């Protein structure tokens, strides 16, 4: 408990500074655009309605979806920029988060700004015109100062929203306080989740208080209060931005999806690259499609994927080949289509399989999926968030005629808990998962061969295809991790008691590999 807290505490400076810089940049951009729209809206009724409608519409889009949508959009823009100007930009991480959060900040600012200006007493506007102010002088000297307290209240609301929503930028590859929450949720490390929540809430509270001081300063025309609030905010942002500038850009970006095995392997690869002399940044917690697109565009240099995932999701193949010919086709296709180099297979498979509690399976006399089919109508099925939309699910249903009484989707962590608690009868398990053995689950046989092979393969981006450091660091991992070793590593991170961090497990795994290699 205390070392988990210490671990979380050690990560705080990095996460917090990224979170602050992202939120501040998004607020600054959002405020700038909002103010332009406020001015346009108060001057023209024809602009006002569409602007307010658009800002309200943005608010109805779930913030996570908004962040997710900016990634493919920016990827397309970057591709276009590359064609036109010869240079693209990273569509991952900071930029999509910045744009989505800036959009998200706009509604309260625009709404309050427009209301603040339109509610000014007509006599004051008439006086401003009567004394000979131009439109801009009226705006700067009368309308904005009088609307400032209400506008600031909107800025306050927006800032709290943005700081909260910035935790959701982790899945698009931006480090934030959300890293605590997403990895904590994955690893069942509730200390980490709580730490992330408390940190984000504290940050929001502090910023809200400072903006509140500015707001009351404006309302009471107390210049000192306004200056103090602005100065405190500026110092905070500068302090947060300082470590970022000092760090410099990492040369190698290691990617990873959002589950334990991926976090361990990303740590392992990162540590090895660092030992070989490269500076490393990790971008883990990414969605499956996001991380592949990031590798293809060069935002990520290396990550581990699975042959079946590439085959079915990326190549959109529906046929099934034996392991070796399939790997050969994948290698050739990745090279041809994206210039991606498949360094090789790590030596284990993390396939999909169906699992049940052993006692329940034995009571029903179930050992294979074929046996399961006869009982499925009375049983409930739990899958992870992508399982039911994967081709294997269709293949399973048609191969065995499976029809369950009900089906539910779970975040992987909760899925294992659901099957051990008897909340569901069957789950979609991963074969390398340490919890299969630990929870005494039975992996059901697949006599019809409906599940694809899922060999863990190391993929390297085109620009790193002949990179010496990378090859030297990662070559010893190829074929070096058998299934039992990976299962044990995963269990160290996933178990309820004596839970280890992915980094510590990666160190253990590296020493195990070295010991076996000798």
């Amino acid at each position, binding site marked *: 408990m205390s070392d988990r807290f210490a671990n979380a505490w050690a990560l705080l400076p990095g996460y917090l500074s990224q979170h602050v810089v992202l939120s501040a940049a998004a607020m600054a951009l959002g405020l700038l655009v909002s103010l332009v729209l406020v001015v346009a809206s108060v001057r023209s009724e024809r602009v006002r309605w569409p602007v307010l409608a658009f800002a309200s519409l943005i608010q109805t889009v779930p913030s996570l979806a908004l962040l997710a949508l900016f990634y493919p959009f920016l990827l397309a823009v970057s591709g276009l920029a590359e064609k036109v100007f010869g240079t693209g930009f990273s569509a991952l991480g900071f930029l999509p988060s910045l744009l989505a959060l800036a959009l998200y900040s706009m509604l309260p600012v625009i709404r309050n700004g427009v209301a603040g200006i339109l509610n000014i007493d007509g006599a004051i506007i008439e006086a401003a015109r009567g004394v000979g102010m131009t439109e801009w002088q009226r705006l700067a000297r009368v309308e904005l100062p*009088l609307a400032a307290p209400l506008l600031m209240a909107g800025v306050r609301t927006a800032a709290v929203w943005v700081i909260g929503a910035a935790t959701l930028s982790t899945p698009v590859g931006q480090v934030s306080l959300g890293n605590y929450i997403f990895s904590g949720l994955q690893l069942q490390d509730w200390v980490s989740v709580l730490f992330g929540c408390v940190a984000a809430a504290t940050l929001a509270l502090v910023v809200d208080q400072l903006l509140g001081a500015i707001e009351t300063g404006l309302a009471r025309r107390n210049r000192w209060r306004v200056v103090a609030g602005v100065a405190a905010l500026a110092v905070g942002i500068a302090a947060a931005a300082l470590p970022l500038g000092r760090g410099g850009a990492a040369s190698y970006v290691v990617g990873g999806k959002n589950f334990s095995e991926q976090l361990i392997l990303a740590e392992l690869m990162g540590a090895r690259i660092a030992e070989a002399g490269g500076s490393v940044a990790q971008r883990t917690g990414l969605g499956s499609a996001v991380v592949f697109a990031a590798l293809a565009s060069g935002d990520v240099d290396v990550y581990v994927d699975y042959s079946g995932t590439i085959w079915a999701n990326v190549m959109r193949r529906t046929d099934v080949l034996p392991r070796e010919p399939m790997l050969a086709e994948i290698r050739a296709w990745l090279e041809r289509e994206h210039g991606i180099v498949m360094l090789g297979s790590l030596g284990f498979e993390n396939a999909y399989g169906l699992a049940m509690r052993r006692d329940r399976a034995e009571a029903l006399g179930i050992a294979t999926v074929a046996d399961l089919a006869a009982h499925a109508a009375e049983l409930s099925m739990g899958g992870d968030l992508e399982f039911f939309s994967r081709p294997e699910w269709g293949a399973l249903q048609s191969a065995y005629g499976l029809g369950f009484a009900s089906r539910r989707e779970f975040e992987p962590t909760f899925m294992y808990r659901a099957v051990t608690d008897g909340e569901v009868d069957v789950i979609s398990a991963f074969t390398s998962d340490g919890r299969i053995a630990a929870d005494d689950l039975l992996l059901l046989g697949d006599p019809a061969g409906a599940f694809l092979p899922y060999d863990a393969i190391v993929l390297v981006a085109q620009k790193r295809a002949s990179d010496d450091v990378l090859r030297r660091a990662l070559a010893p991992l190829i074929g070096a991790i058998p299934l039992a070793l990976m299962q044990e590593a995963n269990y160290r991170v996933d178990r309820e008691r004596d839970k280890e961090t992915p980094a510590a497990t990666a160190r253990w795994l590296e020493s195990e590999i070295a010991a076996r290699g000798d």
Partner: protein
Amino acid sequence: MTGTADARGQPIVELRSVRRAFGSTVAVRDVDLAVGPSEFLAILGESGSGKTTLLKTINRLQPPDRGDVLIDGRSTSAVVEHELRRRIGYVFQRVGLFPHMTVAENIGVTPRLLGWSEESIRARVDELLALVNLPAEMAARLPTALSGGQRQRVGVARALAARPSIMLMDEPFGALDPVTRDSLGAEYRLLHERMGLVTVMVTHDVIEALLLADRIVVMREGAIVASGTPRELMNERTDAEVRKLMDMPRRQMTRVAAMLDDARRP
């Protein structure tokens, strides 16, 4: 009687066939009007008669749809609006002091727009506070800390700040209590004379118009229906409308005079 230049010379403000409509409602119907040097003109009329709109065509807060407004013989249609307004003082019933500015800042607003030095603005503010009979320490106060009469004194000072030669006043004292209203009116008349201003004041108060103005024009339904000195209008016999308008103050005066006579009798 309307549209003729005053005997005192070349008109300072001249309206030629000025028309202003809001949709299908015509507020000002082809009005001709001339205001001479140092003249105090009152525009008298019921609400809805178009008197306020007519006033605002002069500083183009309501630019005329047709016709032209000339100041010192030059058309105002070619002048940049905000520059025109900085040369013309404007006072209106709701005052419109800027609530986020101190009294001094409110008074200094037009000089500041004109780029006066801070020093000369400060001196002008002090001078104006004395002129409108406000204590100097009022300068640092916010408008919310003032009484209604004090606010309108600041309003008058603000309008005078950039030394305009023309003052437009839209029922300036209409919201004040009768005592304040009377004294402010009288004080303003003195300022008007001392500074040689041209003042055009809109009012619906006949007595105020009679006591303050050199000349009164009466408006009805967007047109000027009568014009003359207070004495001429009081003695008007032909126009029934004007007679009715002037009867009311005459009756009141007679009754008040009778009371005074009674009081003097032993």
